[in-house]
Every structure is written in structure tokens, then in C-alpha cells.
């Protein structure tokens, strides 16, 4: 599956996305850890607090659906194709 990076995270990593293997039962959190390994940069702490919840303004979407309204980082990726990772951002 594809893990896409946005906003300041994309600028810091210098890549828009990476492909990760996603076997059945993999969680969103595990997929993001694999994406970290693939980029060679640690960014988990910029997105999640110590409880694994996204910081205000940050979000993780699984095929567009926010994992905050599912089972958080433990949400299984299922047959989804894309995880979108946003560090804290906002505007209006």
C-alpha cells in the first residue's frame, strides 16, 4: 500500500510517498512504522502523542477516513490502498 506524506512532513522527508508491504491484519500504526524505516527518518513523535493519538491539527487518514473515528493506530489496514499522514496544520 501507499503511505503519503503531506505539509511540513513532506517537505522534511523530501518524498511524497513510499510503498510498504501490507499483509492482512497489519495495523495503521505498523504500516506507518514501516514507512519510517523506508524513509530512514523518524517522524512518529511529530504526529502522535505518547498515547498514540494525533496532535491537534494532525491526522492520519485510511483511504480518506480519519483513524481517530476508527480504532486509532490499531485500526487494521484491511484492503485499503492509501494511508495519508498529516503533521499539525491548520488555516482558514
Amino acid at each position, binding site marked *: 500500500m501507499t503511505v*503519503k506524506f*503531506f*505539509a*511540513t512532513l*513532506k*517537505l522534511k522527508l523530501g518524498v*511524497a510517498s513510499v510503498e510498504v508491504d501490507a499483509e492482512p491484519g497489519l495495523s495503521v500504526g505498523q504500516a506507518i512504522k514501516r514507512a519510517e524505516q523506508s524513509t530512514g527518518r523518524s517522524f512518529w513523535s511529530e504526529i502522535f502523542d505518547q498515547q498514540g493519538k*494525533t*496532535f*491537534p*491539527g*494532525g*491526522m492520519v*487518514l485510511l*483511504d*480518506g*477516513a*480519519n483513524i*481517530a*473515528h476508527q480504532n486509532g493506530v490499531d485500526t487494521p489496514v484491511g484492503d485499503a490502498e492509501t494511508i*495519508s499522514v*498529516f*503533521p*499539525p*496544520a*491548520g*488555516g*482558514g
Partner: protein
Amino acid sequence: MAFMGTMLRVNLTDGTIKKDPTPIELAKKYVGGRGLATRLLMNEVDPTIDALSPDNKLIFATGPLSNTNAPTGGRYMVITKGPLTGGIASSNSGGEWGAYLKKAGYDLVILEGKSPKPVYLSVMEDDVQIKDAAHVWGKRVPETTDTLIAESGQKKAKVSCIGPAGENLVMFASIMNEKHRAAGRTGVGAVMGSKNLKAIVVHGNKKSPIPDPDAFRDLVKGKIATIKANGITGEGLPKLGTKVLDNIINENGMYPSRNFQDVMYDGTSHMSGEALVEKGYLKRNSGCYMCPIACARNVELPNGRKGEGPEYETGWAFGPLLGFHDLNVICDANFLCNDLGLDTISAGVTIACAMEMYEKGYIKKEELDNGPELTFGNSEALPYYLYKMAYREGIGDKLAQGSFRFATSYGCPEFSMTCKKQELPAYDPRGVQGMGMSYAVGNRGGDHVRSYLIAPEILGSPEKLDPQAVEGKMQWLFIFQNLTAVIDSSGLCLFTSFALGADDYADMLNAATGFELTTAQWLEAGERIWNMERNFNLLAGIGPETDTLPRRFFDEPAQRGPNKGKVHRLPEMLPEYYQLRGWNADGTMPQAKLEALGIE
């Protein structure tokens, strides 16, 4: 007590200028700025008048925190009866002009009547004069600004002015200050144009009186630290500005394209805030008066054109909404609107409406006078019809009335994406139920900054709400509307609220004014302001039947993305909203509600 204590009353018909005391007791009930100015407008103007007649009044107002070192304390508001909605018009701008009006010694300027010839108002502390503006009438915003600063003899003088769009009474003309900052929405620029008033130039060196300046400074330091430590205001907004939202809103499946016919746009990554950085167009960020956030974009295009922007809404309205994503075209159109004094949201949504009507055969090719075809994806059409609107040439004369009047004149108002005749911003209501309600019941029509429920519904600030849920949303809307009325009226920028809460604003307002009100009392002032604005609209004939959305959002489900199949669920929420507000079940306002809030 934070107020300068004096307000200017300028009669443009007979040229008289009075200096009246600022009504501080009223300010205690209505905070200042937006609230106090709306109170004064209600006292002095019949809501049923023609907005562009000399009977209307135009009020430039600052808040108690303007011209203090409170974070973002430089804003001002323009309040009047608006031509676009026919109801309360109220538009808010940053930069430094608001702070400099107070440095000149004045909290508000009330403009009455109509000048027999083009003039501008010069406010240089005690020296206040109405001056001839024949030489700048017809000029664009940058030339007007430079000319009037030179005439003032003060390099640091600040100019708030209209461009050709305001002079030509375009119903969504803006008022521009410092060339790039806009009191953009609700057509306040047209009211200024109707009075033959080109500009207000301000300069001074006075300080706002604060009861205990040292204590206030210490308090403010803490608030600034909170803003800098917040991920949104401390890093996201400074680095990428509001345009960081392009991808966020698109990925969440609520980024309207092709006049809201679709809820996503496939080329978003090519024109996003990230793209603006990666392509090298963004040169630096900058901030308004006393702003620790600094979200402004300073852009230089490959063609050498420079300017500020685009903000998120503008980038969307001049790109994906019209079916293209050329950042050069988007930025240039933004610069053009700043020069002409046009509201970018209403301008873009009006052109999008015309494109849908053209593609569906309502507008004939002959009506375009050999101009570019009004088809989605045709970026050539954008600058062409912006210019035509500003100068009211050809079909631009009809477009200048906004999309509702334009589409209605062809018998198809359903293509106008408006609430109360004002064009909607860049969040599709089918993907975000609370924000959709905010549009529907907004006092100034379709608008995103009077209760920005995107913060909790999408961004998770201060906590994450499910955007498709309807339960409990109206309580959030109620609180956001009231708190935003306080923030606006205080003279601060709404962006501070990503980091600060109601108690923080109460702290700063009390320390600046010495009023010693509780947080609940400040929020009640916000509720008072909201109800007063609603009452103005009801008296103007804008009834509860206008508390709705364009039919598209009920009849045409989202076609793709995470909100596929969703429509807006307004009927499930509107009764609860009226009940929370203490209004009648039909949305009218009981006299007892006005009395309970102390609204005279």
C-alpha cells in the same frame, strides 16, 4: 482602559467632522470592534434602506486589543448594511491599519452620507481632513496607496482604500489596506464606493492606555508562548500558511471542484501549499501587527510578478473550483483582485457558476462578446472575466452582482453556490455537517470565519469530532459563533484560537480594559452580538427561510471519496440550533430573548 476614548463622525454630504466620545458603557456590553460598531449601526440606520444609498453608514472599528502588544492586535473591522446579502455586512482585516487608527487617537470612524465628488479621509492625529481624491479615482490599489502615503508626508502612514471594483459598485468589492490585506467579504468596498470615498489614510504615535502595562505585558508573554508552542500556530501556519489545507481538505473528500459538482480535485498536489514551496514561488512568510504566527505568503512568480498570497480560499476559488491548477494563473489572479479590490471567494464562485451555466446551455456564446469560453478548465477565462467584472463591461456587468442575482436573471438560481446570496467558501457541506450549518445560519451569509467548525470536525482542535455526526454539533456551533464574535470584536485574529481558549481572551480583555468580567460574561457578550446581528437581518427582511443551503447539497450525493453517497443533513440540526439559541421554533426571535440579553 484600552480604548482611545474618541471616535470620528464624518458626514461626507456636508463635509463636517466631529470627534465624539467612544461609548465605553456600550463597549462593556458589546466588547468593541464588530460588536460595538454593529450596535451603533443598529442605533442609527434603518435595516430596510438601500445599502448603496447615502442613508447607509460605513463604520471602521478597532477593538480594545488593537494597538496593544496582545498577539495579532492590529486588526480592524468594517461594518455596514451590505449590498450582497442585504443584511449585516461585517468584514475583518489584518495588517497594521487598525493599530494605526488607534495610534492616531481614534477607536472608530463613522462615515455618513455621500460626498458630491471623490474624496479621501486623512487622519493624522488631531489633524483630520476630507481631501480631494480626483487624482486617485480610477486608480488601482497599489498606485492609490503609494500616492496617498507620499501626500501624507508620513512614510509609515497606512492606507485603507478601494480599487476600481469598489468605485464601480461591484457587489463583492473589498476594502484593501497596505495593498495586500483585505476586508474582503460582504461587499463593504461597494458601500465605500457609493459614498465617493476612495481611502482613509491614518498615522499617529499614540499608545493605547492600559491600566497596568507591566502586568499586561507579562500576561501577553504567556499567551504568545502558548501560540508558539502549538503545532498549528507555531509551525504549520508559519511554514505553509493557510494553503496547507488544500491537500488536507481534498484528502478528506470535501474539496469542491467545478462549482461544487465534485467533492475532490485530482490535480490538488500541483497547486497546494506544499507545491508553492517546492516550485520555489514562496520567497518568505511575514506577519501582521504584533503577530507571532506570520502566516502571510510572499510570492514571486517565474514571470517576475510579486505579491502576497494566495490564501487557501483564493487558491481554491481560482483553481480547482474552476477545473484547473496552474499556480501561475492562480497567483496572478490573486494579485489582480488585490489591485482591483475584488473579493476572491465571491469572484471565483461567481465565475464557477457562470461556467456551469455556460456548459449547460443557459449562457449563449454570443453573450461573451468573443471573450474566452466559460468552460471548466479554461484558465484564460479567469483574468478576463475578473477584469470585466471589476469594470462592469459586457457580461461582467451582470457577474458583478454576484452569482445569485446572475443565475436568477437566467432563471436558474440553483447554480449559485450561496447562502443568503453570499458565495460559499472551500469546504463542501456534504463532507462536514457542522460547517455546513455554519454556512446556513451565518449572519453575513455563506462564510467560514464566523464559526470555523473545520477546527474540531477536520483538524481535531481543540478535540476531534466526526465530521459526519450531527448529534451535539449545534452546541459546538453555538459556542464557536459566540466566541468568534468576542475574538473579532476584541481586535485579534481568529487564528490565535487554534492555541488559545475562551479564558485566555477573557484574561487579555480584562487586563486591557479593566472591566473585570468573567469568561461567561464575555461569552454572553458574544451571544449578544450574534443575536443583534440576527435581529438586524430579520428587520431587513432576511427571514429564517434563508437558513438553508443550495439544493445541490441535499439532492446530489457526493460521488466519490470518503463521503461518497453523503448529503447534508440540515433538517436534522436546524430545530436544535433554534432551540439552543432560545429562538422560536420557526427561527424568529422572541422579544424576551432580546430583553434577556439586554439588547435595546
